[in-house]
Structure formats: structure tokens, C-alpha cells
């Protein structure tokens, strides 16, 4: 289980054992962050963000800086050589000279995979279109493991945009491999979880899948409610977006029948789908989730770089 030098393009690039390795290190970092403050001394993380994503970019930058490393890159492709027409292959070959590892966010699906085929250093997929967002999945898994104490025996509901929501697709495909997981998919008809993915879940893992449009009818039996934003940028038609954007709004009043230890998660940013009056409910963990994102990225970067994380005794 050596992760040094590897790429992380798809969450399935990690076996369950490797996933456990990343999460276990992240938990150690949560417990004693200062102990890891120098493990990436002298290392550089390249951040190639071809589309805006302040949250993910800052999370990666924070992770590297908290381990004593440095960061360079761009957050707007129009201000880089990309605007001159440079290919991804050339950009990554050069970035791989400047940095020890690279995180790439790109609007086109499969772009980080392409980058990994030309990169001399580890490439981390920081999100590619509606396809994959593996470090969000790691973040979600760390949140669940840390706050529920387990990653199995869970009834997990996803609510909102289940068609274009890459965070949903990634998390579902990983949770499906774990024992006794049930899924509830809550969405408007137009944004349903993709049929071929649902069939794959049922055929491969024999998992129970419930589909509904009604959040309140299922909320009382959930261990996790994962809310998602209806993403304007994924629609080709503005009218469809306007019609669907407020399909689900989680208000405090709707939580009355929910379990007291249910987790309300959200990959953020939120718009209307969770009311502010939910924020101070103990079950609302989405800001903690963002914090866990830094730790899990710290662990991942450290393991892909192969730095010494044995900080016992410090």
C-alpha cells in the first residue's frame, strides 16, 4: 500500500485498504495538527485551476501550507498560457518541473486523467466537470467516520441534483463497497440519479436503493442526509434551472422527525437548499465537513509525496 508517486484521478484509484490508510492519517492530523506542521518542508504543490473553485483551491493550499510546504499555480485559466492555446499535456509537463505534486480542477470531464498520462509528478483530480471529485469523497468519508464512528451500516440519503452532482456519484460509488449500506435518492425527475449507475449498484453490490421526490416522507429513517446544490453551471437551458433550483429547501421545521444523530452534510457552497436556521442544529455538520477537507487533503498530499509522516514522540 505505497501511495508515493501515485495519481488520484478517480476515488476508485484507491482500494479500501488505501482509503483507510488516508483516513487514518487524516484522523491523526485532526487530533494533533501541529505535529505535522513541517512534514512537507521544501515541497511544492501546483494548483492548476482551469475554472473558479475558491473553496477547493483554498482547502488544498491550506493543507499544503499547514504542513510547511509551498503552493504555486493559477486560479483562472484566462490569466495563464492556457489562454494562448497551450495543451493540457504541455502545461502539466512544465508544471511537473515546478511542483512536486499537482492538483487540477477542470471543466472538461477526464482532463485530470489526460494530465496524469503526461505528468512526471502525482496529479490529484480537484474536480472535473460533473464527473469526479475524489478529494470531496475523501472529505465526506472522513466526516462520516469521525462523526458517526463507522463507515458501514448506514442509511444514506442524497437530495437535490443527483444527475450532474459529481460529489454524489463519487461518494455513492465508494460507500457501495462497504457493508450494509442503503441509499435513498431524493430528486426531481429531471435530476434523477443516472439509471446506468443505479443498475450497476444493484447488480454489483445488491444494494437497496429507494428513489423518491419527497424528502419529508423518508427523513425519519436516515443516518445521513447529504444535500446538494442545483448547479446552474451544469444546465444548458436557463429556464430549466430556474424551474428546478428551489426543488428542495431544508428548513429546521422539516427536521422534527429526523433522528437526533442524523448528519446533515453538504459539499458547499450552498445557495437556497439549506436554510440558515438549520446551521445551529447539532446535526448540521457541513462546516465541520469543510474543515475535515483540509485534513484529508493534508494526509493525501503527504502520502502521494511519500514524506515521512511518522511524527511519534514530537
Amino acid at each position: 500500500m505505497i501511495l508515493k508517486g501515485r495519481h488520484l484521478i478517480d476515488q476508485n484509484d484507491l482500494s479500501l485498504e488505501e482509503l483507510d490508510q488516508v483516513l487514518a492519517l487524516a484522523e491523526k492530523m485532526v487530533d494533533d495538527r501541529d505535529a505535522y506542521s513541517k512534514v512537507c518542508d521544501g515541497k511544492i504543490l501546483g494548483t492548476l485551476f482551469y475554472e473558479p473553485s475558491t473553496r477547493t483551491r483554498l482547502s488544498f493550499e491550506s493543507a499544503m501550507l499547514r504542513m510547511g510546504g509551498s503552493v504555486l499555480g493559477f486560479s483562472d485559466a484566462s490569466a495563464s498560457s492556457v489562454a494562448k492555446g497551450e495543451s493540457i499535456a504541455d502545461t502539466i509537463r512544465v508544471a511537473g518541473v515546478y511542483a512536486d505534486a499537482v492538483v487540477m480542477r477542470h471543466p472538461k470531464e477526464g482532463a485530470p486523467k489526460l494530465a496524469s498520462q503526461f505528468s512526471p509528478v502525482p496529479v490529484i483530480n480537484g474536480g472535473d466537470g460533473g464527473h469526479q471529485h475524489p478529494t470531496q469523497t475523501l472529505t465526506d468519508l472522513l466526516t462520516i467516520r469521525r462523526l458517526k464512528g463507522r463507515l458501514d451500516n448506514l442509511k444514506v440519503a442524497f437530495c437535490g441534483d443527483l444527475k450532474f452532482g459529481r460529489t454524489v456519484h463519487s461518494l455513492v460509488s465508494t460507500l457501495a463497497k462497504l457493508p450494509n449500506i442503503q441509499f435513498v435518492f431524493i430528486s426531481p425527475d429531471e435530476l434523477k440519479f443516472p439509471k446506468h449507475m443505479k443498475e450497476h449498484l444493484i447488480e454489483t453490490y445488491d444494494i437497496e436503493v429507494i428513489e423518491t421526490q419527497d424528502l419529508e416522507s423518508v427523513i425519519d429513517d436516515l443516518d445521513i442526509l447529504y444535500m446538494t446544490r442545483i448547479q446552474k453551471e451544469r444546465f444548458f437551458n436557463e429556464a430549466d434551472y430556474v424551474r428546478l433550483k428551489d426543488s428542495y429547501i431544508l428548513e429546521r421545521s422539516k427536521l422534527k422527525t429526523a433522528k437526533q444523530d442524523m448528519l446533515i452534510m453538504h459539499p458547499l457552497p450552498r445557495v437556497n437548499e439549506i436554510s440558515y436556521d438549520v446551521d445551529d442544529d447539532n446535526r448540521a455538520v457541513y462546516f465541520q465537513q469543510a474543515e475535515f477537507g483540509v485534513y484529508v487533503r493534508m494526509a493525501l498530499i503527504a502520502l502521494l509525496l511519500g514524506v515521512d509522516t511518522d511524527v511519534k514522540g514530537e
Partner: protein
Amino acid sequence: MLKVNSINRGIVIDHIPVGKGIKIFDKLKLNEADFPVVLLMNVSSNISQKKDIIKIENVMDIDLTLLGLIDSNITVNIIDDNKIIEKKKVEIPGDVTGMFKCKNSRCISNFDDYVTPKFKLVHKNSKLLYSCEYCDELTTYVL
């Protein structure tokens, strides 16, 4: 009845589904050939009632992957001295590179010159579904 002579040395692509013969003819660029080529359409067949056949009076490389994508029942016979000396098996290809495009309009393979679209077979039943190596979208090859 239409009579077409057998060939002395060359290739016979047989058991082509009706209507696909002319498409294979185009894909193999046989219209540019400077040797005898015959396309037979709607020929009687014991197996499927009707079929198309292509006879090529020349030995040339035939893209078996392309034929496999169309129909795995197609047969390719290599002829020499008026006899079949080899029967090539056409199979549904497990991996396909550069034969068709990913249907996902957001896939990098439709935008970047460095990318050759690559697919893996994920479904063999009624229709062939191929998963894109880059974006995982499922695409069906239609000739």
C-alpha cells in the same frame, strides 16, 4: 439470378447484416481500390435469410475491430488459389481506440488534440456499450 465469380486470391467478408455492407465498404475506403472489389447486397443466406457480402480480389489488412463492432457473426475468409486458407474470427472488441467519439459533450476527448478516444466494453447484451476511459460516459457505436 445474379452470378458473381469466386475470387482466386483475396478476401471475402461474409455474413454482413443487410445494409451494413455499403457502410463497411465506405469505412474500408474500398471505393479507392485499384483492384477488383464486389459488394453484394441482399444475398440469400441460410442463417439470417439475407446478408451482404464483400469480395476483394487482393490481400489487404482488414480492421477486425471495426467488423466486431458491427456484428460478431461476420466472417472473414482469406482466399488463395480459389480455396479458403484461413478463417478469421470476428469478436466484439473489449478495447476500442480511435474508432468513434465519446457522446459526452463535456468530455475532454472531444476537445484536446492529444487525446485519442479510448473505450472499454461494459455491456455485451442487446447493444454494445462502451465506457469512455476519460469520462466514463457510456457510448454505443453505431455504424
